[in-house]
């Protein structure tokens, strides 16, 4: 039942944003998303309750500014590498440990790693993320984790558990 | 004037991705360049919505983005099989 309600709300919101907020569009969207969520809700694996508002608020206020700042830094770094005449590279694959359990948290962490300076996540399993790094520095694994995912790990661990 | 500059820069990016598609030594290079070119074209369609003053192009951009993502995932599933 909770899955059904979550799917209904998500479908209805997407329909309304895509088709505009006139009366007849919103009503047709309600009917269509009722039928669709009745069909689909058995196969879904997500559901949410009222804490979602709190989580989304935290996500927008705390996570998004840090993310945008790191992303602009990443792009300036990448522009410097691309535009310099001989490209400075020292690529390698490294492992990064993570403590986040939930699937959404892991997806967000992997996406953040991909969009921050010089790193790209390649493979995710239970508690490690495998990362391709353009410019490997240092030798120890703890250094890697701190360097690559430290700040995001703390923020996302607070939000997603 | 500004529109022409934006078109020029975007087309510059798309041109180099197409060069990489033609030159790329392996299939993975071509798939990566195709992914980049698809994202650039999605942005270009949204910019066309501004130039032609019509919000229909936004729907086209959404559908193009969904199809580009599916295309990349299908290509990479195909690449995973060892060619030997």
């Amino acid at each position, binding site marked *: 039942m909770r899955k059904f309600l979550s799917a209904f709300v998500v479908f209805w919101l997407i329909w309304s944003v895509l088709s505009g907020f006139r009366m007849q569009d919103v009503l047709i969207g309600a009917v269509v998303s009722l039928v669709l969520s009745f069909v689909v809700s058995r196969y879904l694996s997500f559901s949410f309750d009222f804490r979602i508002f709190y989580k989304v608020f935290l996500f927008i206020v705390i996570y998004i500014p840090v993310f945008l700042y790191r992303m602009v830094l990443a792009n300036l770094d990448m522009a410097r590498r691309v535009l310099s005449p001989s490209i400075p590279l020292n690529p*390698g694959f490294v492992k990064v440990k993570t403590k986040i359990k939930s699937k959404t948290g892991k997806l967000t962490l992997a996406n953040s790693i991909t*969009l921050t300076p010089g790193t*790209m996540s390649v493979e995710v399993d239970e508690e490690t993320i495998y990362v391709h790094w353009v410019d490997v520095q240092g030798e120890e694994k703890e250094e890697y984790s701190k360097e690559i995912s430290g700040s995001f790990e703390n923020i996302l661990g607070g939000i997603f558990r | 004037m500004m529109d022409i500059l*934006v078109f020029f820069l975007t087309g510059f990016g798309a041109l180099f991705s197409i060069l990489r598609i033609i030159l790329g030594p392996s299939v993975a*290079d071509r798939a990566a360049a195709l992914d980049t070119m698809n994202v650039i074209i999605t*942005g270009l369609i949204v*910019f066309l919505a501004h130039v032609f003053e019509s919000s229909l192009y936004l729907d086209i951009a959404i559908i193009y983005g969904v199809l580009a993502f599916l295309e990349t995932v299908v290509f990479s*599933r195909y690449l995973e099989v060892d060619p030997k």
Partner: protein
Amino acid sequence: MTIIGYFFLLVGASFYALGGLGMFRMPDVFNRLQAGTKATTLGTISLLFGVGMLHPEWMLKILLIIVFLTITNPVSSSTLARSAYLAKVKTKTKKDDLKLLLNGDDDDD
């Protein structure tokens, strides 16, 4: 408003150009993916935000496109990198901690 919109449009378009140039100049697949993904994601956010500034009545739809692209673009580049690794594409990589995982069992999911 118009000036800010055109500023974001120009920034986004120049990041697109940088992404294409990085895709052309970098030496192997993984570095190409890095340059392409980062530059085009920030370029898309900036250019779409610029169009939303010029036409404030489209802002909701444009935010939807931005959220969608910001989620799917890193995922697709990550799957491409994983499959390029599994297909053993030639690289210039010097250090490889990943051998433990990916040489054993190939496709189990």
